[in-house]
């Protein structure tokens, strides 16, 4: 039973101490959705809306990791806040026509995010197919099938508490994993420790103090090596790994000034590493796809051409490259997609056909 208690304590510490912000977002969001889901009696929408707004704001504050807010960040926050709020409205709205319109808003703001991600063709296609065709078809069906006044379908929810909890547990797990992988705080701590050590080295005079500082510097280079293992194939990581051997050499010589220079250059390289957190790493296997849609997935990330923000550069002609990729690498998939559309059209007509049993004469009263 002792091990069970320690496991429980570790879970509680993980949820409420280490990651209390994410837990707060999850609890507030789940409570908001639970309060706002439709039910027959009069609802206290103010509480739910307030909690939902709190969750969105705290989640946004969690994401703000930018040193300076630029146009891209501003547009990202605007579009994603619109998408998330409209998504909440879609889930909690009683009137299905309004739900369809908030779905259109979700789609349009996702299209804005697509534009930020250098996908103009997809933004246009999604706006036309989803916000144009699909939403309008839904509205037609609603007009055909909608009843007057309150109905069971719109004024009741199935298990609102359980579904809110399930959804937010899923979201919480995803966010914990993302935070574990994209957290920059260990790197920041290491960088500030290096800064302070360099400052102390400049001031140090006594021999035994110098030796102590050199020992600490070697320990720091070990930390940097551990960090470099997380992104092994960047040039900066290779430099950091080599630097460990050099630091050992300098330590045996006892040269403080050279150690200081080495630490400073490692500091600069680690900053590069920080900028490339979140860029993807390729698999070792050879890709069977061509390079028509940009560098193949087997290319190492050190081979990628990068812009000045350390993100890989995208092909300039989005639509042309997409088309070439579709009609070379994905030709079979395109053909299958076309066949699927044809089959779906035939199937929809076959299903929606009334058949002889519902001829107009029999439908009349």
């Amino acid at each position, binding site marked *: 039973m002792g091990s069970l208690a320690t496991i429980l304590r570790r879970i509680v510490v993980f949820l409420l101490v280490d990651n209390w912000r994410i837990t707060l977002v999850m609890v507030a969001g789940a409570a908001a*959705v639970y309060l706002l889901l439709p*039910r*027959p009696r009069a609802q206290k929408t103010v509480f739910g809306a307030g909690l939902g707004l709190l969750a969105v704001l705290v989640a946004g504050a969690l*994401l703000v990791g930018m040193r300076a807010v*630029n146009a891209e960040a501003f547009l990202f926050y605007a579009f*994603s806040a619109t998408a*998330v709020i409209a*998504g909440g409205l*879609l*889930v909690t709205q009683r009137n*299905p026509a309004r739900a*369809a319109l908030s779905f259109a808003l*979700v789609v349009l703001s*996702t299209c804005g*995010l697509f534009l930020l991600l250098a*996908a103009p*063709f*997809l933004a246009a296609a*999604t706006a036309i*197919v*989803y916000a144009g065709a*699909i939403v309008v*078809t*839904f509205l037609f069906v609603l007009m*055909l*099938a*909608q009843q007057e006044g309150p*109905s*069971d*379908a719109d*004024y009741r*929810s*199935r298990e609102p508490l359980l579904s809110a909890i*399930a959804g937010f547990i*899923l*979201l919480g797990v995803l966010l914990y994993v*993302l935070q574990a992988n*994209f957290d920059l705080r260990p790197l920041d701590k290491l960088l500030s420790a290096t800064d302070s050590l360099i400052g102390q080295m400049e001031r140090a005079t006594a021999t035994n103090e110098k030796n102590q500082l050199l020992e600490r510097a070697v320990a720091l280079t070990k930390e940097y090596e551990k960090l470099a293992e997380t992104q092994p194939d960047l040039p900066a990581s290779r430099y950091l790994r080599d630097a460990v051997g050099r630091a050992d050499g300098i330590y045996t010589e006892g040269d403080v000034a050279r150690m200081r220079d080495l630490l400073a250059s490692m500091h600069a390289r680690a900053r590069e590493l920080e*900028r490339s*957190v979140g*860029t*993807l790493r390729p698999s070792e296997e050879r890709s069977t796809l061509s390079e028509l*849609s*940009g*560098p193949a*997935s087997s290319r190492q990330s050190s081979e990628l051409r990068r812009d*000045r*923000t350390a993100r*890989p550069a995208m092909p300039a002609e989005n639509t042309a490259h997409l088309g070439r990729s*579709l009609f070379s*690498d*994905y030709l079979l998939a395109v053909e299958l*997609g076309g066949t*699927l559309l044809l089959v*779906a059209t035939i*199937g929809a007509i076959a*299903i*929606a056909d*009334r058949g002889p049993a*519902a001829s107009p004469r029999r439908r009349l009263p």
Partner: protein
Amino acid sequence: MSTLPLHHYLVVGAVLFALGMIGFLARRNLIVMFLCVEMMLQGVALNLVAFARYRGNLQGQSFVLFILTVAACEAGIALALVLTLYRSRHTLDVSAWQDLREANLEPTIDEEPLPAEPEAAPEPKLTPAGIEPVHHEETSHV
């Protein structure tokens, strides 16, 4: 010059996916359930496009095009099905189909009554506007 890290987009995609899942589980209107599924697809598409951007190629975007195709097929079929279901039970409520459940499960019964429908405003009645004038056969021809 700083840039947005990848996980910003992944978080938005995850939120859209989770909200769509909640909607699909909790709502009872067939059409709203379907819209929620489409929103989950949007979350996935956002993830794929973000991965493509941070890898520097277009393969993720090609995947999203196929998602669009499949979503369009799905919308057509599902709306045809919804219409058929509506014709046989005259409601969009999924719980109208709960007799398809397994034999050992209890049916869910709605206990709370629905709110009363608000009284419709009475339709305006026109007051008679005097005596109807006599129509002359001759004047009706031009």
